[in-house]
């Protein structure tokens, strides 16, 4: 071998080693999300998995920190006119979409307009908005018809639908049609070519992202990325298989480990449990207000009195350290969380429920309770509800079905014998129900466009409208209390207690912070 040929071989080896070194250094965070990702438009659906996908690739104007305070994110500074009708926002420098184009006020206006057609708080905000414009590339303005007390809360809302900022060309898509361009300005770039729904979703670090200087907190603060790539394992959905993969070091994080494997994961070597979302989730029973017997408020109150929270939590969660009773419809520990007006449930008992039912004139109409058999996170609640209702004196028809049959059926207003229903049970993340506007169960517009169950109450709507207009925080708290007291009085729905969903991770993953969902910035893999 000649000297030059030897040199060439050595150079080739060196190049290969270097390439291998680069590959070896690439830090990949392997995550098992809480469900499959298929839809990719976080404005089109409220599904949490799509919201989390949105946080990866999009940025937000404001964020909500761990103390539930609204903090600027893409916005640098803002001001409101003395009459609170003109809001002017200036974007911070350095914001750019993944295609290199700068984020402008026009992009923001188009994004807010689309979001305002789908999200409950967005729709509420738009009833106050006269117009929006962008007088300069880094500025946008919101003109209101009258003052409104939740402009920043709406723009910084942390949960579905989050007002993510998209390029104008994308945000101009009809709000009822899904987008197919996933260009954002967030800390990660979505690898569309590697996306295989039901298999994996891949995100690359956006190396041009300019994070804020503050520490991460909730959905606010600096979004520093310390890994090169995040791989979501969408195929791994069996609870035990997820735990095995984590113990074996094949994945780094399980977003929502099953309660059944919680104790074994706590003891497993190399694995740790993190409580990243202490605000947790709330279980809820929802009545169908259109049909007998729950069209009668006295019957609903009797059911409410029967629903002590502890039995639901014990049956469904079963791990004392992960659940808590909470006599609030707004989630305990959040700004409006309070027991005000909850006595009908919190200070009641089965004897009281039986008395209330006797006084209600209940005629023995069977109550159809829908039970989802395939959704482990709420599967046991309907059994407890049925048992408590029976003890109170109700006749109960517990009907088992898969969750998606339930989802289709709960949208029906038909009588029970034509596919209707009387009660279903579900769970909400704290930030989806933490104020009277966001809480869908408190939208009492009835059949017009309220949430499934179609509660109707003008008095509650009036207090809710006052809450929307109020700008003084102390008065807002008082109004929120009044909304809640009225909701308990007419029994819109029943809060069934709260639980915290832990995250399981390998011990070499650090940097978890308090938030409302599953966010993948600030995490380090050692």
């Amino acid at each position, binding site marked *: 071998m000649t000297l030059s040929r030897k040199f060439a071989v050595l150079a080739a080896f060196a190049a290969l080693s270097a390439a291998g070194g680069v590959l070896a250094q690439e830090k990949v965070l392997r995550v098992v999300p809480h469900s*499959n990702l*298929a*839809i*990719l438009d976080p404005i089109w*659906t*409220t*599904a949490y998995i*799509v919201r989390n996908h949105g946080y990866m690739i999009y940025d937000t104007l404001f964020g909500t920190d761990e103390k539930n305070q609204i903090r600027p994110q893409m916005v640098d500074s803002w001001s409101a006119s003395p009459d609170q009708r003109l809001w002017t926002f200036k974007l911070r420098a350095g914001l750019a979409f993944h295609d290199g184009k700068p984020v402008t006020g026009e992009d923001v206006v188009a994004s807010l307009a689309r979001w305002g057609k*789908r999200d*409950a708080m967005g729709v509420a905000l738009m009833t106050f908005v006269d117009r929006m414009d962008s007088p300069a590339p880094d500025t946008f303005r919101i003109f209101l018809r009258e003052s409104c007390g939740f402009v920043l809360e709406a723009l910084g809302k942390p949960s*579905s639908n989050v007002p993510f900022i998209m390029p104008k060309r994308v945000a101009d898509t009809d709000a*009822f*049609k*899904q987008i*197919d361009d996933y260009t954002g300005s967030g800390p990660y770039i979505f690898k569309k070519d590697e996306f*295989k*729904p*039901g*298999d*994996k979703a891949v995100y690359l670090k956006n190396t041009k992202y300019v994070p804020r200087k503050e520490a991460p907190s909730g959905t606010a603060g600096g979004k520093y990325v310390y890994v090169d790539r995040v791989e979501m*394992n*969408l*195929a*791994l*959905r*069996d609870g*035990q*298989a997820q735990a*095995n*993969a984590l*113990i*074996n070091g*094949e994945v780094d994080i399980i977003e929502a480990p099953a309660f059944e494997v919680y104790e074994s994961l706590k003891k497993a070597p190399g694995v740790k449990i993190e409580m990243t979302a202490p605000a947790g989730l709330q279980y809820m029973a929802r009545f169908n207000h259109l049909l007998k017997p729950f069209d009668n408020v006295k019957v609903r109150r009797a059911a409410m009195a029967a629903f002590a929270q502890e039995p639901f939590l014990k049956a469904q969660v079963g791990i004392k350290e992960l659940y808590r009773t909470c006599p609030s419809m707004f989630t305990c520990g959040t700004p409006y969380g309070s027991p005000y007006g909850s006595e009908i449930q919190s200070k009641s008992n089965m004897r009281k429920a039986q008395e209330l039912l006797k006084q209600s004139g209940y005629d023995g109409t069977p109550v159809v309770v829908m039970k989802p058999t*395939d959704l482990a996170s709420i599967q046991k609640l309907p059994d407890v509800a049925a048992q408590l209702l029976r003890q109170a004196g109700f006749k109960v028809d517990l009907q088992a*079905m*898969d*969750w*998606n*049959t339930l*989802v*289709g*059926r*709960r*949208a029906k*207003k038909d009588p029970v014998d034509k*596919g209707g229903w009387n009660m279903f049970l*579900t769970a*909400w993340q704290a930030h*989806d129900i933490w104020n009277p506007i966001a809480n*869908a169960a408190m939208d009492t517009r009835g059949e017009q*466009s*309220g*949430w*499934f169950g179609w509660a109707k109450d003008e008095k509650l709507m009036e207090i809710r409208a006052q809450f929307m207009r109020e700008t003084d925080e102390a008065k807002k708290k008082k109004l929120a209390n009044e909304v809640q007291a009225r909701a308990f009085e007419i029994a819109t729905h029943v809060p069934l207690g709260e639980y915290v969903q832990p995250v399981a991770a390998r011990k070499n993953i650090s940097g978890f912070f308090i938030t409302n969902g599953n966010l993948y910035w600030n995490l380090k893999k050692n």
Partner: protein
Amino acid sequence: MLPFIARRLAATIPVLAIVAVLVFLLLRLTPGDPAAILAGDAANVEQIAKIRAGLGLDRSIPVQFAIWLGQMLSGDLGESFYFKMKVTDLIGQRIEPTLALAAVTIVIAVLVAVPLGVLAAWRFGGWLDRALMGFSVLGFSVPVFVLAYILIWVVSLKLGWLPVQGYRRIADGFLPFLRHLILPSITLSVIYIALIARVTRAAVLDTLGEDYIRTARAKGLSESRVLVRHALANAAVPIATVIGLGIALLIGGVVVTESVYAIPGLGRLTVDAVLARDFPTIQGVILLFSFTYVLVNLLVDLSYVFFDPRIRY
């Protein structure tokens, strides 16, 4: 032979047409609303109605059927409601893991079961035969997921020999591909080993009592030659039939194994599509399964000619 193949292939058209119509109607009669599922938890009835219209589900069933039939005739299986991809692309993404799993499973099953069945027949009533019968009962009785968890616990978690879950495409390297398929294939093959071994044993046992076997032995042929060339060859038709049925059943029967081992194959796709009421995907996958079933049956029929020259089509 060629006219037979042509006739059989032509016969698949009405079969697939009947399957297509039945699946289409059954899906429309099943409770569940794809629009409500897609809209998410906080959507209201108004929003769901708009999504339903966007999917074309607000049209009458005959109109929906006519549109779908038109697409089908032009070779288009439509677009998935849930995954927002063409169904053909979706199936293309998922077919490799399922085919790979089915192929390795059937290879393991045949390589283990046929010799076991022959040996059990040869030693009829002996310990090997009894052991095989016992294993068969166990193979039929133990649920796939129980076996999967036991194998994972021993082989992956305790011994650390193989990965717990996942799939690697063959294009990413043969060794990682095989490493990820060994446990799922063993798990899935046990029931087929039990089935094929029992059928092989029974078929070989039948032939061992035939005159030509006695003649072969009388001629002084070795026992192995008698077993393989005479007994097994003449017992091949029922064995080929059960292997063919096994292949067809495997394609649709991999759901549990794919779930436990997190293999993104057609089984998982079917479950996801059913749960999401994703009509175009369910229709596409079921048509594919039906076609596979018909094709495998045809191949089995053709294999009879190879195994038994007396058979003519």
